[in-house]
C-alpha cells in the first residue's frame, strides 16, 4: 500500500501481533518451561513461570523409565524411511509426467489425489487384519510401508509441480549442447531438481513424524514412534506433568525447527499446488 505508515500505527500493530503470536505459541512455551520444573513445581498453584529451580532431571528420567531414545529412533526410521521409499517410487513417475505428459497424465494425477481423500477408518479393519496375519503389526517395516503409501500422492504431486517448473527449453538447450541422457541428468536436471526434491522430503518427514492414526493403531511397545509413546502418558500414575513436558519437548522440537524451515513448501505441498 502506498499510504505512509506512521510509527505509532506500526507500534500498535506490532504490539497486537506479538501479543496474539505469544498467546498462540504459549502452550508450546509452557510445555518447554514445565519440562525444566520439578513435578511439584509443575502442578503448583499459583503456577511458577520462570523463577523456579531449573533442572534437567525430567529428561534423564524420561529416557531411563521409558526408553525414549528407542521411540525417537522409531520415529526417525518411520519418517525418514517412508519418505525415502515414497521418493524412490514417486520421482520417476513425477518426472515422466512432467516431462513427457500424455493425455492421461492429468487423469492419473487426479486419481492419485483422490486416493488421499479416502478416510483411514475405511480401511482400518482390513489393514489391521492383514498386518496381523502377515506378522506386520508393531513392526517398523510395516509402518514404513503404510506411511510411504499414504503420503505417496502428496509426494508425487509436489515433485510434479516442482519438475513442471523446470523449463523444457533448458533440456532442449542441453541436448543442443551435446549432452547425452546421462550428462543431461547429472549436469542439468539433477541440480535443478534437487531443491524441489529436498522440499518434498522435508514436508513428508514432518507429516510422517506427526501422523497419529496408523501409528497408534498398528504399533504396541516395540515399533511405537513418539506419537504413540506420548499417548501412553494419557493414563499415567502419580505426578507426571514435568516428565510429560520433557518427553513432549523432545518429540516436537526437532520437527518444529524443520517445519520453520519449510513454511513455503508446506503451503504448496498441502494444497497440492493450488496455492503457492
Amino acid at each position, binding site marked *: 500500500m502506498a499510504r505512509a505508515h506512521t510509527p505509532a500505527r506500526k507500534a500498535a500493530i506490532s504490539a497486537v501481533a506479538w501479543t496474539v503470536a505469544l498467546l498462540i505459541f504459549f502452550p508450546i512455551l509452557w510445555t518447554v518451561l514445565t519440562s525444566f520444573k520439578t513435578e511439584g513445581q509443575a502442578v503448583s498453584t499459583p503456577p511458577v513461570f520462570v523463577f523456579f529451580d531449573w533442572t534437567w532431571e525430567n529428561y534423564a528420567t524420561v529416557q531411563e523409565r521409558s526408553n525414549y531414545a528407542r521411540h525417537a529412533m522409531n520415529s526417525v526410521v518411520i519418517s525418514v524411511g517412508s519418505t525415502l521409499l515414497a521418493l524412490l517410487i514417486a520421482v520417476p513417475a513425477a518426472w515422466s509426467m512432467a516431462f513427457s505428459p500424455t493425455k492421461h497424465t492429468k487423469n492419473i494425477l487426479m486419481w492419485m489425489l483422490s486416493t488421499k481423500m479416502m478416510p483411514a477408518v475405511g480401511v482400518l479393519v482390513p489393514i489391521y487384519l492383514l498386518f496381523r496375519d502377515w506378522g506386520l503389526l508393531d513392526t517398523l517395516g510395516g509402518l514404513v510401508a503404510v506411511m510411504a503409501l499414504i503420503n505417496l500422492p502428496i509426494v508425487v504431486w509436489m515433485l510434479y509441480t516442482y519438475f513442471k517448473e523446470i*523449463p523444457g*527449453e*533448458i533440456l*532442449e*538447450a*542441453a*541436448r*543442443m*549442447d*551435446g*549432452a*547425452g541422457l546421462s*550428462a543431461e541428468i547429472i*549436469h*542439468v536436471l539433477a*541440480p*535443478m531438481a534437487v531443491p524441489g526434491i529436498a522440499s518434498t522430503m522435508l514436508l513428508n518427514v514432518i507429516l510422517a513424524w506427526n501422523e497419529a492414526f496408523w501409528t497408534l493403531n498398528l504399533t504396541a511397545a516395540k515399533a511405537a514412534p513418539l506419537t504413540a509413546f506420548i499417548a501412553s502418558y494419557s493414563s499415567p500414575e502419580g505426578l507426571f506433568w514435568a516428565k510429560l513436558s520433557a518427553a513432549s519437548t523432545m518429540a516436537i522440537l526437532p520437527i518444529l525447527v524443520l517445519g520453520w524451515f519449510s513454511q513455503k513448501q508446506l503451503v504448496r505441498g498441502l494444497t497440492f499446488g493450488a496455492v503457492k
Partner: protein
Amino acid sequence: MGAIALQGVKKSFGGVAVIPGVDLEIENGEFVVFVGPSGCGKSTLLRLIAGLEDASGGMIRINGKDATALPPARRGLAMVFQSYALYPHMSVYRNIAFPLKMAGVDKAEIDRKVRGAAATLNLTDYLDRRPGQLSGGQRQRVAIGRAIVREPAAFLFDEPLSNLDAALRVSMRLEISELHQKLGATMVYVTHDQVEAMTMADKIVVLNRGAIEQVGSPLELYRSPANLFVAAFIGSPKMNLIEGAAAAAHGANTIGVRPEHLTLSREAGDWKGVVTIAEHLGSDTFLHVEGEGVGAVTARVSGEFGAGPGDTVHMTPEAGRVYRFGADGKAMA
C-alpha cells in the same frame, strides 16, 4: 560452412499436419528469417532443423549430408532460445563452457574460447555471476555466447528478442547483425516481427499455416509480394487493400496500395475522403482516412502535413505502385 536444405519436410502432431511439406534452400553464410503470424509453424520448422522435433517425412540436409535422423547434438548447430534457456545453477562461465565440456574439449582450450566469446559479447565482468543476477540483455548475450563457442555450422534463433524491451530489442538486433557480419556464419532466425525480418535478413521466408508463402530478399518481398498474405504482412503501416469498384477500375479483384505510395492533396485526386485520425510523428504524418468508395485507408506523408480530423483530402496512388490481386489472392502480372 553451413548450408541447409529441406526437401519435402513434413510434421504432424497426432494426425494434424502442422507442416504439410516444405522445400527450402539455405546457403552458407546466409541470414535467413522465418516470419509469420503466431501458429504459422515457423518455430516448428526451426525445431525440425535443430532436431528437437522428429520430421514426419522428407529430408533435412546439412552441408549436403542427410541429417534427418541425427540427434540435435550431432547436427553441428547451435540454438538461442526464446527464454534463453540458461542453466540457472551454473555461472555465466560454466554456461558458456557447457557445450565444450560436453564435447570433451580440454580445459585450457575451453578457457580460451569462453574468454574469447565473453570479450566479444562484453560479458567478461560477469563470468562469475549466475543467470539470475543478469539483466535480460546480458542473459541474451550469454545464450549467444554459449552458441558461439561451439563454432557451429549454423546458428538457430527462436524469437530471441521477444522478451526484451523495445530499446534493448533495437540494440540487440544490431548486435546480432554485426555478429553475423563478423562470423560470416549461417543464421536462421524466427520472428513474428516483420521489422526484425526486414532489417536483419538476407532472405526472408514468409510462412502461413505451415506452408511457405514467399521466399525472397526484404526488398523483393516489399516490391513484389506474391500474394495478398505477403502484401499485408510485410510493410508498416500495413498495405491498404481495396476491393470493389476501385479495384475493378484497375482490372483486379483487390488492389493494394502502401500508405507511403499515396499522394495527398487538398484539391483533387482519385479518391476523396475525410480524415478520422491524424498521427503526427514529425518525420512522417499518418492519416487515417475514410475514403469514398474505398473504405478506411491509411496514408503516410513525409514530413508534417497540416490536416486534422474532419478535413477533406484527396488521395492518388503513385503510378506503378498499385498491386493487383486476382480472385485467388495471387498477384496479377
